[in-house]
């Protein structure tokens, strides 16, 4: 028999216990006012020793069974490519539908991500204004139904938060290849020395391929129209601790990476030493140490209670593992759920104004919750450039998911003239990472058949070459930013429900032209660098036309924007939910931050890094709100 249980009131209720909630919880619980904080997550607490140190080597259970990930039978989503299609639910985590699984439990998706980091530069925060200023009319020409918006703050506004957040999570790297020339129109994410001009820990050791890439970048002339005189290669920024580390200002010690090889690899593997930065091993301990923080696990939040009179969220309702309903009242609510789960719970609860697509012509939309869904990841069938280095390797070599490689930001943002190009932005290019996905015995087993491996001696030779190859393949799949459009959005599915009977989120999304147009140009430029590396057989493979998105990878972004206009964004610059009201705009007690809130497809792969500063700013906003409720002003 299920019961309804009323929980004690808390000053702050965090929905989810991942990257964003962890930091907000720690910051608010550590405040001198002794605020009482609770974080509620649908999964368990993972102990990296007892849960991961031996069992994660179960490649079948982890890679295919996805035993650490959010169980789809409980909650999934539906996907479609256009508003006229019937969306179908995602029922399994394997390709081609999805191999980047959603996280589960304390730490969220960061328990098994690759730890790739990299700040977004000034252009990324002001894409619309800078494009309209520098290339009038281009945006409409590329994507006539675009719904691009600027962020509420520019890079300089976020930089102090970047620095603080990087010290907490412990990032490795040097800088961003930035010449630190803040006065130029180059769009590197520069690192102001007043905040610390480098990441706290040194980068992971570079692989031989990375070193060759670095040398080749320095020796390759920039493409025509470049605003830089030579490439600026730099070690990849990673959140996998390269050294023993104690974070600041929380004092939580962190173990270094042991390069076990079972790391990101399609986001399969959790870390067995806690070196992979996530809330469970960076921020939650600091919150716990205050005595002001409670962590509730295996709790499925199914509704927020919205009081339309006071314009506040008053309660969060969740099921525990036994099916009991818990009612959690609070003064402030922070939503740190995974992106479209964040949107879904708002739509289910009547928080905010749901986005409504108008097919036009011309296309348009109203409302904000669910608006502007984008993608921060390459189409897996995308344009690519490949080549072969005459360099032996060992597929069993240890490593991790985001160390060892070298990146350039020079082909990103507006660091080259786009006047005669049919896209905006560019891509971060990186090469030479470790093999961090485990040896891949599943793939091997799946690939053994007489038709593709031969038999007898042929089979043995192929397997030997697989594990001790005499050459190394190099390549990249670059793509330009995804531009949000009116017809890409999140709403509630009218047909499919979760295990408790509530509608699933429905994602309407397809690749956009800007991504593909940029990919073709960028692949050609990267081909010149691969050739300079000494690669043979360098080829650019262009994407076949009419390839549609058929995954719901967790690099989908947007849909719950922070912005400058309460009519088209859900949150203001403090990540506070705001509503157009009469006579004035209302600021509610509901805050959120996450990868999903990005207003456009990222210009760097890691939305997590971009979202980090938002969570810090949200924490500051929440503390302001607790002192003086109301609309926070910039």
């Amino acid at each position, binding site marked *: 028999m*299920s019961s*309804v249980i009323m929980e004690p009131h808390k000053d702050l209720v965090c929905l989810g216990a991942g990257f964003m909630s962890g930091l907000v919880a720690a910051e608010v619980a550590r405040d001198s006012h002794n605020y009482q904080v609770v974080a509620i997550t649908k*999964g*368990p*607490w993972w*102990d990296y*020793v007892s849960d991961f*140190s*031996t069992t994660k080597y179960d490649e079948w259970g982890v890679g295919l069974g996805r035993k650490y990930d959010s*169980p789809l*039978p*409980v909650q999934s989503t539906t996907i479609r490519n256009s508003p006229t299609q019937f969306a179908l639910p995602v029922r399994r985590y394997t390709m081609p539908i999805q191999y980047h699984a959603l996280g589960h*439990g304390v730490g969220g998706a960061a328990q098994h991500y690759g730890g790739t980091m990299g700040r977004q530069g000034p252009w990324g925060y002001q894409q619309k204004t800078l494009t309209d200023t520098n290339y009038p009319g281009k945006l409409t020409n590329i994507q006539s139904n675009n719904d691009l918006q600027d962020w509420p703050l520019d890079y300089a506004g976020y930089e102090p938060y970047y620095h603080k957040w990087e*010290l907490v999570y*412990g990032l490795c790297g040097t800088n961003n290849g930035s010449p630190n020339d803040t006065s130029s129109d180059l769009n590197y994410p520069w690192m102001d020395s007043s905040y610390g001009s*480098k990441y*706290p*820990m040194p980068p992971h050791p570079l692989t031989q391929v990375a070193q060759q890439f670095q040398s080749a970048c320095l020796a390759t002339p920039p493409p025509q129209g470049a605003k830089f005189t030579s490439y600026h290669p730099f070690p990849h920024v990673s959140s996998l601790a390269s*050294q*023993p*580390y*104690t*974070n*600041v200002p*929380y*004092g*939580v*010690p*962190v*173990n*270094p990476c*042991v390069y076990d090889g079972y790391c990101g690899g399609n986001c399969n593997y959790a870390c*067995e*030493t*806690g070196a992979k930065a996530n809330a469970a091993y960076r921020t939650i*301990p600091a919150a*716990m*140490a205050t*005595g002001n923080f409670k962590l509730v*696990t*295996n709790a*499925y939040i*199914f*509704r927020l209670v*919205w009081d339309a009179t006071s314009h506040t969220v008053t309660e969060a309702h969740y*099921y525990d*593992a036994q*099916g*009991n*309903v818990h009612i959690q009242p609070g003064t402030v609510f922070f939503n740190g759920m995974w992106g479209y789960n964040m949107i879904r719970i708002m*739509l*289910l*609860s*009547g928080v905010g104004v*749901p986005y409504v697509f108008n097919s036009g012509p011309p296309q348009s939309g109203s409302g904000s919750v669910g608006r502007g869904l984008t993608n921060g990841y390459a189409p897996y069938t995308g344009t690519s450039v490949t080549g072969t280095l005459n360099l032996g390797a060992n597929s069993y070599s240890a490593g991790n998911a985001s160390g060892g490689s070298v990146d350039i930001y020079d082909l990103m943002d507006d660091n080259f003239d786009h006047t005669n190009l049919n896209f905006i932005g560019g891509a971060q290019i990186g090469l030479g990472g470790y093999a961090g996905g485990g040896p891949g015995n599943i793939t091997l087993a799946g690939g053994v058949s007489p038709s593709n491996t031969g038999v007898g001696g042929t089979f043995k030779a192929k397997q030997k070459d697989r594990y001790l190859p005499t050459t190394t393949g190099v390549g990249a799949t670059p793509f330009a930013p995804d531009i949000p459009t009116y017809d890409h959005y999140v709403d*509630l599915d009218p047909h499919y429900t979760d*295990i*408790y*009977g*509530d509608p699933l989120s429905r994602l309407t999304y397809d690749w956009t032209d800007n991504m593909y147009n940029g990919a073709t140009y960028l692949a050609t430029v990267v081909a010149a660098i691969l050739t300079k590396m000494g690669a043979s057989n360098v080829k650019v493979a262009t994407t076949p036309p009419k390839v549609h998105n058929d995954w719901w990878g967790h690099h989908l972004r947007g849909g719950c924007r922070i912005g400058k206009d309460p009519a088209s964004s859900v949150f203001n610059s403090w990540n506070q939910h705001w509503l157009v009201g009469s006579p004035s705009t209302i600021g509610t007690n509901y805050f959120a931050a996450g990868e999903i809130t990005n207003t456009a497809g990222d210009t760097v792969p890691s939305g997590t890094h971009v979202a980090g500063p938002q969570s810090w700013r949200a924490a500051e906003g929440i503390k302001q709100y607790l002192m003086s409720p109301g609309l926070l002003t910039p």
Partner: protein
Amino acid sequence: MPALKIPRKVRSIVAPFVESRVPGPEEFVVLSEPLLNATLKLAELLRECKPKWAMSGDAGELVSGVNVSADHLSILTTAEGCEEISRKLAENLVQTPGMVERKLEREANIDLKPYPVQIKSYEARFQIDGQRLDVYGGLQIRVGDWEWGDPLDYSPEYVYVGSEKLPVVPLRLKTELYIGLGWMDRVKKINEAMTRRHHGPGFGG
């Protein structure tokens, strides 16, 4: 879309879940903020210090991931190092450097018998941002009436505290000392930390 109504009737669901035990606050290793700030300041002040020095004591173990509590900072160095540190931290000096010999509060436990433990070192004391810092130069240990041991020597390991690269006394040396003193509870704590760091057994059994 209007908000949906919360179902009146709770559905009985058998949802898959992983059993979860949330650790208690005492299971998390955290260096207190005052000590952390003092550590950062210390690392900055001693950045150019030539003689060998390393963070020691409970705080040194704590930044290496050992679950102990610390109420002050300690440095293990040589007599020359103690002099050099005293010069660099002259403004923070509380007790001028000099040879100090004293008995530890905790006794050694060898073959189930208690023995007094004495230490002597060229010692100085400081206050960094209100936090106590003890500096031990050429520390020697004597158990019972046995001979004094050699001055402790080590190759420091390094921990990054924020952006500061901080030398720390290796846990292996600490383990050997604790085994020698029969302080197996401390050995166990280091072993637990090493198990978490290397997913395997630590030092000394």
